[in-house]
C-alpha cells in the first residue's frame, strides 16, 4: 500500500528566520577555552622549526600544540576516511597554503589570536604544483612520498569495444572542457566544541556526518563506542563542506592538551582553506552516426584532489560512472583520475563529480547537433537512456525518466514560442542540459522509534538538518509510516548516544535511505501494535489500519484502539523498534579493469532549460528564464522539492557565471567574500520555476532531490549562449570577459 504524505512547511521555519534554532556556533560548554590555529603561508615546505615559547607565556594561554607534540598526547595524529593521509597538525611538512601547523588554546578568542601571532615557524620551501595535469608529469614534486605521480585515485571503464565504436562512427568530435576550483561557502563556518567529561570524549560539531566524525575520533583516541559522544545541531549550510571529518580531531586534541573544554570557530579565510570543489579537465571524444546516434565515447577526466585525499580516491570513480552522461552508448572508454596538488583539499560539493562532466558532455551534445543539423532537443531524445537499456557499467537501467524530464523543461522554456527579440546590442538564446548521477553506494541508515504510553513518538536518527528540511520531511514520513499524527512526533537532534548509525547526510540520500530505515522500523512497530491489539480487534474482516494514533480493522473503525491505550493495558511504558536500510554494490564491487558492475543503488536524474540574454559589448550574461526538473520517484513534500531544485539553480549560477578560486604562486588570492562572491537573492533569474517527475508505479523508490539540477545549469547556459551568438565557452566560469573575448575572436575570424 502506498502512503499519503501530508506536505507541511518546515516545522521550525519561524525559528529559523528569527535565529532561534539551536546551532553549533551558538553553543557553549561551561569553562571552555578557545582555539586559534596557526596556518602555513607557503604552499609546500619542510618545517625546520616551530618556536612556541613566546606564545606559551602570553596571557590566558593554556596550551600550545604542534604536529611534533601530538605524539606526546598519545593520539593517532593522522586521519582521513579513505586514505589515512591528513595530519591533525602538519608533521614535518606542509602541503598547501593555509594548512594547520600549530594551535593555541587560551581563555578568550582574542588572547588565543594574539598568542598565535607569536608562534614562529621556519619553513624550507619546496617546489609546488597547483595544477592536476602538471602534477601527473615526472617533473612534478611528489606531495606524499607513498603516492607516486601524485596519484589520488585512478579508475578505468571499458564498455563494448571502443575501436569498433570509432569504426561505426560517421563523424568524430573532440573537445576539452575545464572547471576551476570553487568553494561551498556555507553561511555558518566550521565550528566544533570538545570536552573530556569523565572518561567520555564529547564533541559538538557542525558536521554532515556525525558517524564519520565518530569513526575518525575512535581511531584518533583509541576509544570504545561508549566513551565517545558526537552531537550535531542545525547546520547553517553544508553542501559537502562539512562532510566526513574536518576540524574535529584538531579540536578534540586541543581539549586533551588544555585539559578543559574548548571551542573553535573558523574564520572565513580558514573555511576557504578547509575544503573546495575539484577543479577538472575533461577531454571528450565522441563518435556519432549522421542521424545523431552516439556510438562511441572516450572520456579522459583529471580532477584536482588538493593536498589530501578526503573523498577523491572514491570520487574519481564516481565521476567515471557519470562521465558519459544519461545516454545509451555501446562503446565507451573512460579514464578518470584525481591527483594531489599543493592546493586546498577538495571533496564533496553539491553536484559533486558530476557538474564538471555535465559541463562537457552537454555542451558537446549541442555542438554535435549543430554540426549535423539536428535540433538539440531531438538529438537528446534519440540518445537518452530508457528503462531496460544497458548502462556503461553494464547494469540494466530501471526507473528511468529522462524523456519526461527533457519534455518538462523544454516545454516550460520553449512553449512560449520564439524568444522575444533582444534589445539592441544584445542577443537571446535558449539551451537545455540533462544529467545522471549515482548516489553513495553501499550505504546504511538505521533508525530507532520509541512510542511512549502517552502516544508520543520519538524518532532517533542521525540525519542532519542543514536547511534542506530533512527533519520535517522525515517527520512526514514517520507520520505516514507509523500512523502517529505528526504533532505527536519528535525527531531530536543527532546524538550518537541516542541515534543509531547513519553513513552521512550527503549525496541526496537522507530522504531515500533514512526514510527507508524509518519505514522498516515502522513496520516492526505496527507488527507489535497489531499483536497487542488482537483482543480488541474482534473481527478479522478488512485490512488492518494504523491511523490517527489508533489501530483498527477497515470493516470496524468504531473498534479503533489508541496506541497509548494498548501500551498502558500491557503495562509497557514504551515500545522501541529499530529499522535498517542497507544498499549493496557500489564502486568497490566494480571490476577494476573494466568498471563493470552495479555502481549505484539507483540513479539520480535531472534537467534544466534556460533562456538568457547576453550583452554583446560587455559579454555579460543574464538568465531571464530558468526551469529545472528532477525525477523524485515519489514526492514527499512538493514545497521542499521545489526549494531544492531552485536552490540548486541559484547555487549553481555562481559556479556557472563567476565563482572561481584563484591561485597565484601557490597562494589562494581570493579567500574572502569580497573577492569571492556567491549569488544572492537579487541575482536569481527573473523567472525561476521547477517541477518534479513522479513514478506511476504503485510503490516507487523515493529519490533524493538535493542535487538534480545543479550540474545542468552551467551547460544549459553555455548552450543558450551558443544558440544566441554562436560562440562556445569551454572554461568555467562564463565571465563577461571570457564571453566578450570569444565574441571578438569570432568577429576577427569571420
Amino acid at each position, binding site marked *: 500500500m502506498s502512503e499519503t504524505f501530508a506536505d507541511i512547511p518546515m516545522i521550525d521555519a519561524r525559528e529559523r528566520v528569527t535565529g532561534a534554532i539551536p546551532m553549533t556556533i551558538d553553543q557553549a560548554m561551561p569553562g571552555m577555552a578557545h582555539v586559534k590555529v596557526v596556518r602555513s603561508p607557503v604552499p609546500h615546505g619542510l618545517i625546520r622549526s616551530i618556536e612556541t615559547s613566546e606564545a606559551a607565556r602570553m596571557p590566558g594561554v593554556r596550551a600550545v600544540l604542534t604536529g611534533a607534540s601530538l605524539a606526546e598526547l598519545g593520539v593517532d595524529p593522522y586521519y582521513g576516511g579513505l586514505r589515512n593521509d591528513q595530519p591533525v597538525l602538519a608533521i614535518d611538512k606542509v602541503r598547501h597554503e593555509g594548512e594547520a601547523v600549530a594551535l593555541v588554546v587560551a581563555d578568550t578568542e582574542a588572547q588565543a589570536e594574539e598568542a598565535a601571532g607569536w608562534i614562529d615557524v621556519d619553513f624550507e620551501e619546496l617546489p609546488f604544483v597547483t595544477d592536476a595535469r602538471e602534477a601527473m608529469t615526472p617533473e612534478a614534486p611528489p606531495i606524499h612520498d607513498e603516492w607516486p605521480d601524485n596519484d589520488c585515485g585512478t579508475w578505468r571503464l571499458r564498455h563494448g569495444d571502443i575501436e569498433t565504436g570509432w569504426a561505426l562512427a560517421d563523424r568524430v568530435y573532440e573537445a576539452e572542457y575545464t572547471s576551476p576550483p570553487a568553494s561551498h561557502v556555507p553561511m555558518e563556518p566550521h565550528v566544533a566544541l570538545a570536552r573530556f567529561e569523565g572518561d567520555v570524549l564529547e564533541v559538538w560539531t557542525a558536521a554532515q556526518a556525525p558517524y564519520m566524525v565518530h569513526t575518525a575520533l575512535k581511531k584518533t583516541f583509541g576509544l570504545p563506542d561508549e566513551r565517545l559522544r558526537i552531537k550535531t545541531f542545525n547546520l547553517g549550510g553544508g553542501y559537502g563542506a562539512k562532510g566526513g571529518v574536518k576540524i574535529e580531531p584538531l579540536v578534540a586534541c586541543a581539549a586533551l592538551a588544555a585539559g578543559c573544554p574548548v571551542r573553535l570557530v573558523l574564520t572565513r579565510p580558514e573555511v576557504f582553506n578547509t575544503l573546495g570543489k575539484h577543479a577538472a579537465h575533461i577531454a571528450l571524444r565522441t563518435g556519432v552516426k549522421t542521424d545523431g546516434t552516439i556510438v562511441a565515447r572516450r572520456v579522459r577526466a583529471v580532477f584536482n584532489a588538493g593536498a589530501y585525499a578526503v573523498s577523491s580516491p572514491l570520487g574519481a570513480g564516481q565521476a567515471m560512472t557519470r562521465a558519459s552522461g544519461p545516454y545509451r552508448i555501446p562503446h565507451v572508454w573512460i579514464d578518470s583520475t584525481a591527483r594531489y596538488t599543493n592546493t586546498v583539499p577538495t571533496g564533496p560539493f553539491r553536484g559533486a563529480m558530476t557538474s564538471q562532466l555535465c559541463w562537457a558532455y552537454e555542451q558537446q551534445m549541442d555542438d554535435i547537433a549543430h554540426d549535423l543539423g539536428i535540433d538539440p532537443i531531438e538529438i537528446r531524445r534519440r540518445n537518452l537512456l530508457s528503462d531496460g537499456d544497458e548502462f556503461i557499467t553494464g547494469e540494466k537501467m530501471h526507473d528511468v525518466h529522462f524523456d519526461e524530464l527533457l519534455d518538462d523543461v523544454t516545454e516550460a522554456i520553449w512553449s512560449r514560442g520564439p524568444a522575444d527579440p533582444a534589445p539592441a546590442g544584445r542577443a537571446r538564446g535558449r539551451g537545455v542540459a540533462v544529467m545522471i548521477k549515482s548516489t553513495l553506494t553501499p550505504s546504511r541508515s538505521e533508525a530507532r522509534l520509541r512510542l511512549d504510553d502517552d502516544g508520543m513518538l520519538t524518532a532517533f536518527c542521525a540525519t542532519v538538518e542543514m536547511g534542506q528540511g530533512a527533519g520535517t520531511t522525515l517527520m512526514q514520513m514517520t507520520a505516514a509510516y507509523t500512523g502517529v499524527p505528526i504533532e505527536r512526533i519528535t525527531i531530536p537532534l543527532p546524538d550518537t548516544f541516542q541515534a543509531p548509525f547513519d553513513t552521512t547526510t550527503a549525496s541526496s540520500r537522507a530522504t531515500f535511505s533514512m526514510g527507508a530505515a524509518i519505514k522498516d522500523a515502522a513496520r516492526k512497530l505496527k507488527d507489535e501494535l497489531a499483536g497487542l491489539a488482537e483482543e480488541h480487534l474482534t473481527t478479522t474482516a478488512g485490512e488492518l489500519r494504523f491511523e490517527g494514533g489508533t489501530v483498527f480493522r477497515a470493516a470496524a473503525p468504531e473498534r479503533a484502539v489508541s496506541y497509548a491505550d494498548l501500551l498502558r493495558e500491557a503495562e509497557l511504558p514504551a515500545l522501541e523498534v529499530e529499522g535498517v536500510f542497507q544498499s549493496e554494490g557500489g564502486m568497490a564491487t566494480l571490476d577494476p579493469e573494466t568498471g563493470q558492475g552495479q555502481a549505484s543503488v539507483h540513479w539520480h536524474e535531472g534537467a534544466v532549460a534556460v533562456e538568457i540574454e547576453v550583452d554583446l*559589448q*560587455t559579454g*555579460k550574461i543574464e538568465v531571464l528564464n530558468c526551469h529545472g526538473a528532477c525525477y523524485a520517484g515519489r514526492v514527499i513534500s512538493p514545497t521542499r522539492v521545489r526549494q531544492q531544485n531552485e536552490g540548486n539553480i541559484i547555487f549553481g549560477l555562481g559556479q556557472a*557565471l563567476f565563482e572561481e578560486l584563484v591561485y597565484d604562486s601557490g597562494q589562494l588570492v*581570493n579567500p574572502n567574500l569580497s573577492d569571492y562572491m556567491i*549569488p*544572492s537573492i537579487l541575482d536569481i533569474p527573473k523567472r525561476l520555476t521547477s517541477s518534479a517527475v513522479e513514478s506511476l508505479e504503485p510503490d516507487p523508490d523515493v529519490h533524493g532531490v538535493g542535487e538534480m539540477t545543479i550540474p545542468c545549469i552551467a551547460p544549459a547556459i553555455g548552450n543558450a549562449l551558443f544558440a544566441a551568438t554562436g560562440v562556445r565557452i569551454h572554461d568555467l566560469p562564463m*565571465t*563577461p*570577459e571570457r564571453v566578450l573575448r570569444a565574441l571578438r575572436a569570432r568577429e576577427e575570424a569571420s
Partner: protein
Amino acid sequence: MFPSRFEYVAPRSLEEALSTLAGRGDEAKVLAGGQSLIPLLKLRFASPALIVDLNRVPGLSYLEESDGHLRIGALARNRDVVASQTLEAGYPTIAAAAPLVSDPIVRNLGTVAGSLAHADPAGDWGSVMLALGAEVTVRSASGDRTIPVADFLVDTFTTSLEPTEVITEIRVPKPEGSSGGTYLKLERKVGDFATVAVAVQLALDDGRIGRAGIALTAVGPKNIQAIDAERSLAGAEPTPESFQEAARLAADAASPISDVRGSADYKRAVVRTFVQRGLDRALELARAS
C-alpha cells in the same frame, strides 16, 4: 579578526565633534554609516585610537534642493537617495547610481558623504559627483571651506580632508537647460564593487553640447575624470562620431589593473562601451527634457 582597541565617543552636536577632532584629529576616524570603516577596523587595515561617531548629531540627514543645488547632508543614507522621488527628473545620474550602490543592507546604513570620504577608487559616488561637478563642504572648529570633488579626491583612500574636519554637505549644481545623464555599472553580481562603472552627464546648448561630465569607477587609483573626453565634447555636435571619439579618449584616460574582476584590457574595453552607451542615453534624456 578583532579590531584593535579604540576609544569611542558619540557627540551630540557638530561643535562637540569638531572640538574633539581639533584636539585629537590625527588619531581619530569619523564614523557615519560605517560600511567601509568597520571592515577596515576588523581587518586591522585601520587602527585609530579614537572613533568619533556622528550618528547622534542632529540635522545632517537631509537631501534637499535649494539655491540651485541639490544638498546632501553628511548623514544622508544611500537608502534615502534611492527612495527620493525628486531626483529622477533633475538628477538622473544620481537616480541611476543610487540603486546600484552595493546591496540593500549596505545602502540602509552607508552614506554618500562617507563613500566620498573613504575615496575608494571603486566607489560609485566619486564618479557621479565628478561628472556632475559637485562640491564638498567641510567644517572644522575654525570654519567652513568648500572643495570641488575633483580636488577633494586626491588618491586611493586619500582626500584633501584635514584630520580636524568633517564633511557637512555635498553640493550638486542643478544641471541647467536640456540635460541628461546616467550611471552604468558592470558588476559580477549584485552587491559587488564595480568591475567598471561610468558616470556621464550631458547638457545641450542650442542643439550643441554644452557642458559634458564623464567620470570612471574602478579603473585607476581614484575615480577618474575623463577630462580630454569631456573637452572633446564641449561645443561639439552630439553625433555618433563625436561620442565615439569621446569614448576612445575616456578609455585612454583609464588606467585599470588586472584582478579577479577582469583584465586591464577588458576593463578598458568596457569603459569605451559604457561611455558611448552613457552618452547615447544622456542625449536621449536631454532631448526629452
